[in-house]
């Protein structure tokens, strides 16, 4: 259960969430800005989630939509995440055997890194074998803080919680030698999908 966290883990989550407040500044002002996002009914969203081409462009909340209102803050949150991911990965892979290939590295991010960060693994990892990887977390902890199945009142604001983890993923992969872009979408109340596109040179 999402609430079975305490101690440092709780403090960490608080800090990670508070980051956005620290950078967004005044909360009320932010809510207003964020209110500009289109709100869909649960039904619409479930349909969208079911249709779930993770690459489907009509998923309701994504970084680019939110970024319209917070052009400056998203890159900042992302870059904080990048710094964290990049440094963290050095510690986590210290005892790890040399990675075989790209997929091996992706798996590491989905299992070990995610477990370290959120105490659970990514639920599914899919790839088209052409440099696009899709990670799905059905119960993404930062969202599970205030949402549950059937409870979606904060859904329109959930976009602000995904820039930081996107940055962590990008930082971790870049440290492992994979240059990529990472975007994310919140598909249903607690389900978050990350899309990693590897830059080929």
């Amino acid at each position, binding site marked *: 259960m999402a609430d079975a966290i305490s101690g440092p883990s709780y403090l960490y989550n608080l800090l990670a969430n508070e980051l956005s407040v620290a950078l967004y500044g005044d909360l009320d002002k932010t809510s207003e800005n964020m209110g500009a996002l289109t709100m869909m009914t649960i039904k619409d969203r479930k349909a969208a989630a079911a249709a779930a081409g993770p690459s489907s462009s009509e998923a309701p909340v994504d970084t680019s939509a939110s970024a319209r209102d917070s052009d400056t803050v998203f890159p900042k949150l992302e870059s904080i995440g990048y*710094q964290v991911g990049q*440094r963290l990965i*050095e*510690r986590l892979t210290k005892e790890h*055997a*040399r*990675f*075989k290939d790209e997929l091996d590295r992706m798996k590491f991010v989905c299992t070990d890194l995610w477990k370290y960060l959120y105490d659970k693994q990514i639920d599914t990892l899919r790839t088209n074998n052409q440099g696009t990887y899709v990670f799905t977390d059905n119960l993404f902890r930062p969202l599970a803080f205030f949402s549950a199945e059937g409870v979606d009142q904060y859904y329109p604001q959930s976009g602000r919680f995904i820039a930081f983890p996107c940055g962590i993923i990008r930082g971790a992969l870049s440290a*492992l*030698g994979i240059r990529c872009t990472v975007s994310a979408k919140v598909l249903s109340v607690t389900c978050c999908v990350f899309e990693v596109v590897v830059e080929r040179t």
Partner: protein
Amino acid sequence: MALCIGVMGAENQPLLIKISPNIQDPIKFHFMLHSALDVVEEKSQPLPKTPGSISGADLRELYLGLLYPSSDEVRVYGYCANTRMKMILIVEASNTTLRDNEIRTMFRRLHVAYSNMIMNPFYDVGQPISSKSFHDFVDSMIAAFGVGKLVNPTLYSVEMEYFEDVPTLTGIRLLLRS
């Protein structure tokens, strides 16, 4: 009787190079480090899939072991982290008491120190290392790896200038201080 430790970043740029003080010609060691990097690069590549190849697990270790067959003068060891941070250690060939395991342990300790060092938010990953505690640590390693003959274990510190267009050791200017 020589000893040198080099730490290089993902793009082979030097992050830190320490050379034992009683070395007469440090430049030579820079070249040694430089050529060692090529071997590290080669050894840390993913293996081609050859069925029945010997002990695949060993070859995936971060510690790369001896990089060349021992020469008369020195032995060169390498280590390449998953982040492609590389460490190279040169010891005197006459020092036969050093076992492979000790070298491995030493690299591990260096790696731990490095991973702690990059936790410093004011350090930009991939830039030359200025952290005093990391410098002290490497110094202590050089000292501990007993060039017993050293009377005065002060070390030269090597300051590096890193040229954008020459991302290798040839772009280094040395400033030796005693």
